[in-house]
């Protein structure tokens, strides 16, 4: 092959590749080349993920404060934290804002986490426990370490919620490289955090999972519930891949740690 011919062949190949790229991706943003992908090109979210920060204490900006039990000293105190709520404030209706304050006051008996109840959505994503995403060619499972809670994101034809549940009814779809999950059928008994921030059974959560590189997911949840809030609002935080060579999902079956709290008064004296 002459030199000129070789050059023209290479140029043609490059041009063809560019044309194919354009045909394949059309108007969608340029796909991130730095993330793991499935065989079909979809981002591969499989892995062990965990949040950092103190959103599990309070999703809003908060100062450090003493814990409810002086015996626990610094271990039981709440660290300060920057909030994960977009714009800073949760747009509560006035009566709902009062209920949140009441919840906080009575958190040791009312917080579902104290009782080892399932975390609901979005709380499971930023509790101080990892969770495992298992992504198949179709549906996607999420197994949370806390309370062995789990859910399946249906990626097929959207399904109606048969009944209201703690973990809700999840229908997912891909928007470019973002997994968008619409969660309805939630029973409204979950809280957002240990500060009494709450929702009702009319809530709808729209989650967005976007890999920003191999080891980080940008997680967003839009909260729609006009019985509690005056407008939809959004929380956002990064999720980090657990990188320890021996990291794995472990078991945190917390029921037995909550039994004395729940049934202790019924113990034979």
């Amino acid at each position, binding site marked *: 092959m002459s030199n000129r011919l070789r050059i023209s062949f290479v140029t043609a190949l490059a041009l063809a590749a560019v044309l194919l790229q354009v045909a394949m991706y059309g108007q969608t943003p340029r796909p991130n080349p730095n993330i793991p992908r499935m065989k079909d090109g979809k981002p*591969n979210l499989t892995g062990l993920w965990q949040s950092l920060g103190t959103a599990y204490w309070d999703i809003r900006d908060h100062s450090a404060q003493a814990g409810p039990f002086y015996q626990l000293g610094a271990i039981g105190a709440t660290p300060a934290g920057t909030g994960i709520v977009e714009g800073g404030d949760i747009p509560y209706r006035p009566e709902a804002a009062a209920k949140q304050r009441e919840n906080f006051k009575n958190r040791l008996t009312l917080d579902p986490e104290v009782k080892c109840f399932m975390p609901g959505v979005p709380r499971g994503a930023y509790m101080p426990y990892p969770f495992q995403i298992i992504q198949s060619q179709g549906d996607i499972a999420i197994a949370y370490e806390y309370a*062995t809670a789990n859910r399946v994101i249906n990626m097929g034809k959207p399904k109606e919620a048969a009944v209201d549940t703690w973990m809700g009814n999840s229908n997912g779809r891909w928007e470019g490289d973002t997994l968008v999950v619409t969660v309805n059928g939630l029973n409204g008994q979950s809280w957002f955090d240990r500060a009494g921030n709450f929702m009702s059974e009319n809530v709808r959560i729209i989650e967005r999972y976007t890999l920003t590189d191999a080891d980080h997911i940008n997680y967003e949840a839009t909260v729609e519930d006009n019985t509690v809030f005056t407008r939809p609002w959004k929380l956002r935080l990064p999720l980090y891949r657990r990188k320890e060579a021996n990291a794995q999902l472990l078991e945190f079956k917390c029921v037995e740690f909550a039994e004395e709290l729940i049934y202790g008064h019924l*113990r*034979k004296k």
Partner: protein
Amino acid sequence: MRYLIVTFIVTVFLLTALPVFAQAPKPAPTAKPWVALKTPWGDPDLQGIWTSDDCIGTPMNRAAQFGDRLYYTEKELADRESAIARQSETDRQETVSEAARAGTGPPGHWAERARRPCRQTSLVIDPPNGRTPDILPEARLRPQGEGAGNNNPKADSPEDFSYYIRCITRGVAGSIFPVIYGNGQQIIQAPGYVTILQEMVHESRVIPLDGRPHANPNIRSYMGDARGRWEGNTLVVETTNFLHGKTGIGLNGGGVPTSDALKLTERFTRVGPNLVNYEVAIEDSKTYTAPFKVGFPLTQEPGYENFEYACHEGNNAMFNSLSGARAQEKAQQTK
């Protein structure tokens, strides 16, 4: 320039034609033996919602009359088929007849039923007599919580009840053995993982396939530490690192609790679109005099799906049993 245009056209043609050739039409399906499905990344595909319903009611240990015979005869199967038909007739009944004794239990249609008779005479498939090996004397001393069958349980404290009644767990074996309902097992796979989501007490078993060693023996749990591998089309899952003296190898995790030496080796083999052969080898030298195996089919049924089983969140049984017992004591004192 002419060369350029020609080579460009040829290149584009080749690039676009390749996928077309790759997708050559498949021959029409004939009555061939079932070919194991594969995931896009090449693992055998076991995904779906499976249930052990078909062997509901099959005893763990084989009745002596069957000797070493694992399978029923065609005549015996026909009898069992008509029993299923009669049950299905009863389940359709919506109201209790006047003469019937009304209980406090749920109506019959709440329970899951076998759709076809289980061919096996026992769930234990090895040793050949279909009977669980003897239990060591020291293992018999391990305390067992009160199950659902006892209407007058010891109810001094929450710890008097079984881990199932407490909504903690039924253990690995107890979470797949066929019981009255909630036998759903949803398998979802990813490159490097198999996960099994079990409806009752919402267990999620995340099983790595990458050949990593078991977790350190200091990390122990009710559901153990599972590692999986493929042997041909069979998923083999080895589970160790169990807590000592919690659940047993029985329905709902009942029976003599196993020890921290327990090792389970499960084999899942998909042999048809809707059939997985399941077996589990049980080794526990601190509990049983010999290893043994339990096995049964898992099937996929139209319309069958898992629901959220918020067991602990709605555990009125614990509250009512404990408060009932305290009320009885109070009544005794005031007599």
